[in-house]
């Protein structure tokens, strides 16, 4: 804790910059989700039928994978707080492996959808499905790159490494959070 009281809001874990980014990301995805709900209201039949074409088992699996990854990420930050860099790195690897597993499942799902001809431009529901999940996948890939840098960087015992790891964890949890918004809306809502 750098300062107590109201000033603490300017020093959140990982620094204020990452939080500004997170808020902007949530606003962006939020607008997109609202737009989707609105358009779903215009054409509920098509949205319902399209929703049934998605595979909720894969979606649920991916939700579990991503949440577990977030859990290991949190453990990693906790370990580094106790100056146990060795343990922090091991948890970081688990978090990253689960991130890759998410991409694998997502890739398999995309493969099936393309095989069924349910591509971008098929209908409005699938436009949203592809745009939202692709933007999310891009964030997961960026997150994995960031975590990779953390894994390599942690060897050097520099003073800001906890700040850096916290900022990376905040970004990684943001990917979880966005997925937790996307999953029910795409796979269950309509």
């Amino acid at each position, binding site marked *: 804790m750098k300062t107590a009281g109201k000033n603490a809001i300017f020093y959140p874990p990982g620094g204020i910059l990452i939080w500004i980014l997170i808020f902007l990301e949530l606003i962006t995805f939020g*607008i997109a989700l609202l737009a989707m709900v609105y358009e779903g209201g215009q054409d509920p039949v098509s949205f319902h039928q399209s929703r049934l074409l998605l595979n909720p088992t894969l979606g649920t699996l991916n939700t579990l994978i991503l949440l577990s990854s977030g859990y290991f990420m949190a453990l990693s930050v906790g370990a580094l707080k106790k100056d146990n860099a060795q343990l922090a790195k091991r948890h970081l690897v688990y978090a990253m492996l689960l991130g890759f597993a998410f991409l694998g499942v997502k890739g398999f799902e995309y493969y099936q959808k393309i095989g069924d001809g349910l591509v971008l431009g098929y209908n409005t529901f699938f*436009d949203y499905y592809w745009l939202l999940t692709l933007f999310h996948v891009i964030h997961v890939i960026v997150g994995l790159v960031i975590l990779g840098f953390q894994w390599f960087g942690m060897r050097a015992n520099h003073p800001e490494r906890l700040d850096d790891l916290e900022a990376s964890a905040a970004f990684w949890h943001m990917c979880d959070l966005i997925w937790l918004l996307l999953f029910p809306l795409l796979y269950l809502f309509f």
Partner: protein
Amino acid sequence: MKYKSQKVAYWFFALSMLLLVLQLVYGFVMGFARIGMDNLHEIIPFNTARAVHTNLLVVWLLSGFMGAAYYIIPEEAQRELVNVKLAYVQLISLAVVGVIAIVGYHFNYWEGRKFLEIPRPLDYLVVVNVLLFLGLILATLFKGKRKTTTALVLSMGLLFAALLYLPGMLPFDSQVKDSFFRWWVVHLWVEGVWELIMGGILSFLLIKLTGVDREVIEKWLYVIVGITFLSGVLGTGHHYYYIGVNKIWLIVGGIFSALEPLAFLAMALFAVNMYRKGEKRHPNKMALYWTLGAAIVSFVGAGLLGFAHTLPQTNIYTHGTLVTAMHGHLAFWGAYGMIVLAIISYSLPNLTGRKFYDSTRGRLAYWLSNIGMIGMTVAFGVAGVAQVYLERKFKMDFMEVQQEISIHFVVLMLCATMFVTGIVFYIIDFYKHGTPTDEALEASPA
């Protein structure tokens, strides 16, 4: 000024002022034509005047940006420009290409592509010219003693601006494909890489004028410019509504361009906060006025007025009406016109040694031009909304509608007269500063 070669900047600024005056003349030609006084029709038909008006805007801003780069880069890199003679060659060739293009437009020597009317053979000359400019700037930067974030962002903006000129040169038979890539140039310039240039200039000016630490200014400004840039890239989608491309652009364009005002808001808040935070007060008040003005007016003009017609549900009605002219005028004035005038106001006293920091003339120039431009924006807005209702809702004939709204152009030209009076004061101020001299060199680079 700290380096002799910074003097090159003056002549780019002078060219910039000259082209600005010409742009205003063509603006009035169109204004009079709109109220039925189209006596110059045989020599300057409306479509020619429109193309000249927009092309001159781009060239005077580019000339201003180039001048800004020639002023800022040596100072940031802490060395003389690598080759001053070539810089003058570049200036003259820029002016020559510009003049040929503008004269050519009057003889139907052009391509009928909105904003990129310049004919193909001249395109290649533009490319050579810009390559020369970039060569000089980048060589100076990389041979310099230091590479600051400000200088890097400014140079990257200029480099990407040059690269993004190329998609506009691809030949297509399809109108849709041609439009698709034409917007890469037009949109990705003004809502993408030009914002990097603006960010670079803004950062340089704030560092010099407010005395706030370089680290603080550079860190925050580039976060904000980065956000603006990122929302702007996918915001290109707002030019792809209903032009014949996939309709996912309605979603992408709508969402990302709806975010663009946030970034402009952040930029305005940031500039004002840095000003409040700064303890050192630079005596050059006019430069500070223009700098803060640019940050605030760009939020209103580019951010708010852009948002006003960026959603597909709105744009289906407002597309191609005077509503666009409303947004275009205040956005270009706020974001790019004012930032060029800001860097000129800051650098002129340093280049010439005449320190007209705060004069009645300078203040008149600032307030008259800004109030005039806001008046013009309102006139365009009222005319545009009327046009949308009559033409798009009540399906009246295009020319009948023009007749109905011509009164707004009288108001427009009254406000434009006020604007021009401000610009005239600015140019008198520019002229009174005299030409740059080595006597204005500062003894020790601080």
